[in-house]
């Protein structure tokens, strides 16, 4: 480096960071003695300047400056120590320093009490910077030690009993680790005669023989131990648990970042161990996420997450180096790293602010929207959901791994991520859980000043900003994918307005936005845009029926609906996936806004005990929402891998090139199909569906069922179109898909039969009906697809009506159990009529629209030769009658309860959308050709039209169907006897009677409850074939959950809290690495 006389310039060199930190650090005690506040000022100025230095230099590098090598002592390396400030270093330093500044802000109340704390903090940050920048092996050791000692001291600062114990263990562990590192360093020096890392790399061939082997092993172990690999990481967890949030965050993100960077630096001499490192990283990631499941202590939970994330980074860096894919490092490592850095730091601070030890006590922030939003943003980022950096990084990573055919790693990473999502969002669930009034001990309300939230808020903003930058780097040109988010944000800004006003604004915004997003679509996408956007708005209109404030509902709803629009617009799999995840996330949050009356344990155990109906009433929407999110994530991961498989074959992201996947087609199709099936609630994967539909807001359930579920269908059709049809190979998965669909239909129907809860009934019914559609898509024939799309439209129509009318009923009766209703036809004739028409349309009984779908479906099945499926379809549509009748009978017919006598008709706002849907049903029923023509044209590009029309009659290979004529005949057949009856009624004295005027002799009816036959309506059916619908899937998933938890419990036996055990593990780790890498063979 050329010396200049410009002092300012010197300070702005990266070296300035050290100079500043040390200089200020040394002076702080003095300044502090003079004036405490000026010391704080100096402290912050130093941190700020450190950021500025890092930022300016990074900017210079991005703008094309060459990598800065900073020499010291005016002598060229390797003879002196040198530092390097390149792109990675710069980014890392900048990020760490930013976090450090924010962390200092967060932790200031404690820090400012001691000059030593201030200077330790400052020097700790400098130490991390040093670890990142130095290029000397021994100097690295020094910085590690600086960091460690500063950390020790800061851990000890609070002087709590637990903190001290943890700190001591931490010292023991890290001192052993650094001893290893030191030994390794000296032996490396022994062999290479140099300490400069670049020089060592250049002289790699000198590191040979047992000494070389052991020396590298020592260094590796030393660094790895600092990264806290499983199981040698109990000490780290203890520290995370006990250290104050400001410190824990710095350890978690800062120190780990430094060590990680150090590891990255020495990786070139670790070629031999790359596989081991990858395994250690992967193993740590998976296991720590497993164990996280059992954790209830907030900060320890974060600790597990932290360790997991570092494991993931270790795994990824090892893999990337192994694959020689260093070009991907910025995006993948950078993305994951930054994501972890900011999100984790924010969470630690949040945990510190809220100061609730057990995650179960976090319900005390349930009434703090700002804290909840922050928590949600950070968790979302951490899990890697869009639009955060983790999302992009994960995408890149999976794509890369897939193109290298490393599916084992992908599986591991995704399972780990899923587990992480489980415990993180479980935490969020607890936080969302509003306390019930009966709760014995009510956690005190958290009072958090706005100032304290600012650092966390800033991390959130930074995450958004970085995500945006990353997406630009990833060549995501289509900025429209952000539109839903922006719209949601805009609506959120007006969330304080009157509910009517804001909902209307939301509807307007979504209409306009949706129109512009979807107006230039064509084909299937256009068709779905009518359904998803038009239909979505129509059904959303019904949400106006509620008068309460509904904070957060409308912003999220607008995000949901618009993300559906962007889903339809997606040209590439990345856009598709982005929109998909956004949709999953927003619908999760919307579900969570649902029923929230009772307090319950939102653990992830599923409750589906028929006989304990009272228990369900206790369930609120939080637990189902969590399950929903998990299944959504699982679905998303399947889709991700599916896209990745396809990408590995085609090399690009375009959806239309999915079909060129060649030999991977079957695999890609299967994976994608599983993903969509989960979302649709396919057989065996359906357990989320009833609970979610039941517990979400009633009007939102309508949107969920009639609109959002169509996204899954859309996805299925898209992949069927691109993969199934275009690839044009005998797709066995399609046949399997057909079976899955029909089993879904059958079991959905059977399970609906036995429900007591009206929403669960309709939910299962929805699942069953979607099953037909899945099978229809799986048929891969023109008629099959027409039937699938036709049924999709129909499903939208009748499920929209059903859920909205159910919403009306629940609104009026405040009940969900059908046996507690009855006779409501007298109060709600319009709702009844709409429901009845919807049910006839659903059942497939002519003349309403359901018949057309069933007819085409059956014909298509026969064409294809899927006779068994056809028979099951027959059966399930017969079973459907059972629950449909039950719905009408037990709710609207039969005996009306005394307390329901005064009920009014459902609100007009609920009835209007229903009325419109009914009108559409009638139009389609009478003249289905208009719909079928549109569908047929949309499908034409994929499968050529095989429909034959003869006038108004549709001809298939087997049968024919003349909808208008059928409509006319049935109308005639219905009206004629009606007239007859009316004529005869004229001759009679007809007395309109009340509900108890029924046939009875011995005793008169006493109470409507006793006279209404509704509970366990199909007891005999249950006796006959109920055994097939015992909740096996639920039992299975419960067993999975149970098993996972016990497994997690057994995994954490290593963490017995004894520092010596931890030390032993560290030594075992080293020995293990030695043995695994063939140490004995030496």
């Amino acid at each position, binding site marked *: 480096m050329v010396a200049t006389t410009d002092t300012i310039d010197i300070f702005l060199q990266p070296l300035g960071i050290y100079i500043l930190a040390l200089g200020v650090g040394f002076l702080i005690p003095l300044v502090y003695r003079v004036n405490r506040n000026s010391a704080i000022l100096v402290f912050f100025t130093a941190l700020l300047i450190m950021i500025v230095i890092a930022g300016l230099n990074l900017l210079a590098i991005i703008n094309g400056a060459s990598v800065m090598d900073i020499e010291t002592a005016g002598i060229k390396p390797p003879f002196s120590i040198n530092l390097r400030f390149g792109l990675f270093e710069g980014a890392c330093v900048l990020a760490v320093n930013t976090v450090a500044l924010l962390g200092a802000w967060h932790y200031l109340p404690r820090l400012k009490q001691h000059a030593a704390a201030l200077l330790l903090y400052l020097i700790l940050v400098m130490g991390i910077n040093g670890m990142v920048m130095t290029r000397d092996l021994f100097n690295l050791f020094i910085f590690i030690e600086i960091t460690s000692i500063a950390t020790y001291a800061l851990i000890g600062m609070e002087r709590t009993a637990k903190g001290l114990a943890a700190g001591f263990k931490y010292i023991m562990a890290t001192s052993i680790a650094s001893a290893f590192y030191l030994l390794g360093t000296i032996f490396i020096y022994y062999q290479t005669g140099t300490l400069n890392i670049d020089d060592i790399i250049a002289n790699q061939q000198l590191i040979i023989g047992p000494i070389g082997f052991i020396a590298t092993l020592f260094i590796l172990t030393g660094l790895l131990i600092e990264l806290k690999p499983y199981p040698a990481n109990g000490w780290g967890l203890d520290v995370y648990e006990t250290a104050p949030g400001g410190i824990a965050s710095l350890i978690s993100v800062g120190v780990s970042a430094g060590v990680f960077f150090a590891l990255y630096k020495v990786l070139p001499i670790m070629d031999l161990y790359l596989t081991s490192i990858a395994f250690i990283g992967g193993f740590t990631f998976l296991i720590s996420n497993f164990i996280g499941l059992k954790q209830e202590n907030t900060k320890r939970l974060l600790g597990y997450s932290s360790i997991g994330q570092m494991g993931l980074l270790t795994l990824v860096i090892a893999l990337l180096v192994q694959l020689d894919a260093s070009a991907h490092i910025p995006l993948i490592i950078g993305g994951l790293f930054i994501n972890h850095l900011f999100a984790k730091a924010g969470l630690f601070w949040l945990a510190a602010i809220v100061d609730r030890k057990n995650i179960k006590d976090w319900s005390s922030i349930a009434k703090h929207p700002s804290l909840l939003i922050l928590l949600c943003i950070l968790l979302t980022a951490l899990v890697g959901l869009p639009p955060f950096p983790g999302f992009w990084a994960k995408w890149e990573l999976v794509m890369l791994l897939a193109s290298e055919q490393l599916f084992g790693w992908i599986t591991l990473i995704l399972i780990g991520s899923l587990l992480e999502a489980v415990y993180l969002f479980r935490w969020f669930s607890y936080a969302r859980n509003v306390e019930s009034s009966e709760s014995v001990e009510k956690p005190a309300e958290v009072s958090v000043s706005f100032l304290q939230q600012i650092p966390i808020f800033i991390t959130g903003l930074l995450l958004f900003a970085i995500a945006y930058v990353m997406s630009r780097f990833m060549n995501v040109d289509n900025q429209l994918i952000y539109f839903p988010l922006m719209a949601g944000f805009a609506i959120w800004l007006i969330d304080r307005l009157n509910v009517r006003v804001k909902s209307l604004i939301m509807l307007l915004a979504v209409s306009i936005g949706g129109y512009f997003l979807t107006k230039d679509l064509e084909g299937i996408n256009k068709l779905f845009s009518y359904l998803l956007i038009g239909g979505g708005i129509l059904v959303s209109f019904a949400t106006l029926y509620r008068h309460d404030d509904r904070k957060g509902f409308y912003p999220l709803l607008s995000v949901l609906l618009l993300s559906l629009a962007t889903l339809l617009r997606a040209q590439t799999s990345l856009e598709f996936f982005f929109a998909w995840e956004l949709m999953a996330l927003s619908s999760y949050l919307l579900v969570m806004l649902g029923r929230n009356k009772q307090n319950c344990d939102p653990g992830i155990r599923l409750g589906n005990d028929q006989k304990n109906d009272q228990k369900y009433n206790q369930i609120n929407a939080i637990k189902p929402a969590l399950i929903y999110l998990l299944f959504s994530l699982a679905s998303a991961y399947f889709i991700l891998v599916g896209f990745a498989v396809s990408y590995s074959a085609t090399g690009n992201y375009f959806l239309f090139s999915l079909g060129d996947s060649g030999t991977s087609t079957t695999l890609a199709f299967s994976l994608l199909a599983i993903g969509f099936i989960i979302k649709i609630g396919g057989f065996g994967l359906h357990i989320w569906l009833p609970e979610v539909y039941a517990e979400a807001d009633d009007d939102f359930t309508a949107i969920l069922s009639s609109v959002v579920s169509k996204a899954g269908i859309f996805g299925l059709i898209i992949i069927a179109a691109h993969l199934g049809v275009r690839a044009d190979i005998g797709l066995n998965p399609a046949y399997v898909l057909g079976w899955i669909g029909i089993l879904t239909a059958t079991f959905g129907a059977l399970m609906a039969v036995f429900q007591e809860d009206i929403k669960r009934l309709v939910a299962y019914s929805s699942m069953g009906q979607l099953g037909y559609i899945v099978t229809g898509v799986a048929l891969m024939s023109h008629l099959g697809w027409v039937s699938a799309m036709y049924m999709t439209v129909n499903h939208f129509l009748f499920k929209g009506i059903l859920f909205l009318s159910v919403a009306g009923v629940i609104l009026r009766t405040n009940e969900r159990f059908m046996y507690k209703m009855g006779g409501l036809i007298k109060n709600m004739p319009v709702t009844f009529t709409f429901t009845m028409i919807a049910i006839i349309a659903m059942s497939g009984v002519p003349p309403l629209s359901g018949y057309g779908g069933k007819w085409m479906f059956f014909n298509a099945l026969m064409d294809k030769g899927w006779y068994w499926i056809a028979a099951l379809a027959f059966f399930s549509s017969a079973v459907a009658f059972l629950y449909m009748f039950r719905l009408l009978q037990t709710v609207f017919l039969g005996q009306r309860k005394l307390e329901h006598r005064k009920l009014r008709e459902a609100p007009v706002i609920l009835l209007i959308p229903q009325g419109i849907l009914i009108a559409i049903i009638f139009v389609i029923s009478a003249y289905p050709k208009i719909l079928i023509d549109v569908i047929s044209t949309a499908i034409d590009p994929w499968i050529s039209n095989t429909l034959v029309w003869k006038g108004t009659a549709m001809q298939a290979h087997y049968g024919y169907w003349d909808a208008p004529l059928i409509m006319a005949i049935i109308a005639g057949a219905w009206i004629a006897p009606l007239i007859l009856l009316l004529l005869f009624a004229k001759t009679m004295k007809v007395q309109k009677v009340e509900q108890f005027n029924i046939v009875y002799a011995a005793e008169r009816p006493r109470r409507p409850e006793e006279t209404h036959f509704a509970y366990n309506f199909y007891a005999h059916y249950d006796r006959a074939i109920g055994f097939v619908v015992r909740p096996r899937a639920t039992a299975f998933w419960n067993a999975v959950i149970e098993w996972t938890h016990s497994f997690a419990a057994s995994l954490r036996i290593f963490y017995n809290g004894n520092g010596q055990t931890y030390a032993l593990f560290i030594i*075992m780790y080293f020995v293990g690495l030695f043995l695994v890498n063939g140490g004995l063979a030496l």
Partner: protein
Amino acid sequence: MMLGLMAIIFFNLAANYTENTSLSKLAHYYVEKGPQEIGAANIVTAVVVTYRGLDTLGEVTVLFISAAGVGLLLRRKKAEQNNNHKKINSVKETANTHKSSSEIVETATELLLPMIILFGVYVFLNGHLSPGGGFQGGAIIASGTMFLLLALPKSHISRLLIAITESLSGFSYVVVGVLGVVMAGGFLDNRFISSGTYGNLFSAGAIPLIYSFIGLKVGFELSAVLDRFRKETSNEEDDPV
């Protein structure tokens, strides 16, 4: 068992160890060029202060922060502090718990202490010429403190003095390092002061200066550490850290 395996590994190392018969590349350079470039006779010093100056700075930092850390850990609680404000000069009270030392010890201490400190100063000032240096000198000074504390438990060491010396010497070290950037080849380059006559006291550029700072800093820091351990159990004046 693990230790057994460790032992095997170490045995492996030892078994494959052969003694160096020539200097490593790095060492060769240092020994060959060191005296000319740096002007220090003690090559270890040259390495420590200049070639690996950053290490040394870090080392000083380590010492500094461990002293600060010890202070932080062993500070007294606020309540105690407030209490203690009232009895700033409470040495007398504590005198009851410490027997005053015998006269022989006192006299010997008075005699020896200056010599120890002086020796320490000598060691760090001559670090570039002979074995020794800032650390060694500092350690000797600290041993003097130790000696004082052991011999005269009642003796009072000024915290303020320690703090000021500590901070200023550290800061000056950094300033010297920066001067290296401004006036010579780079950070911690000691050659901004002319190297002087080889073998003289005031030679080898800024090394004596640096070593003085280091020596002072180390000495006072170690003293501070010792003092803090001692005072942890006694009631002493308010500790600002």
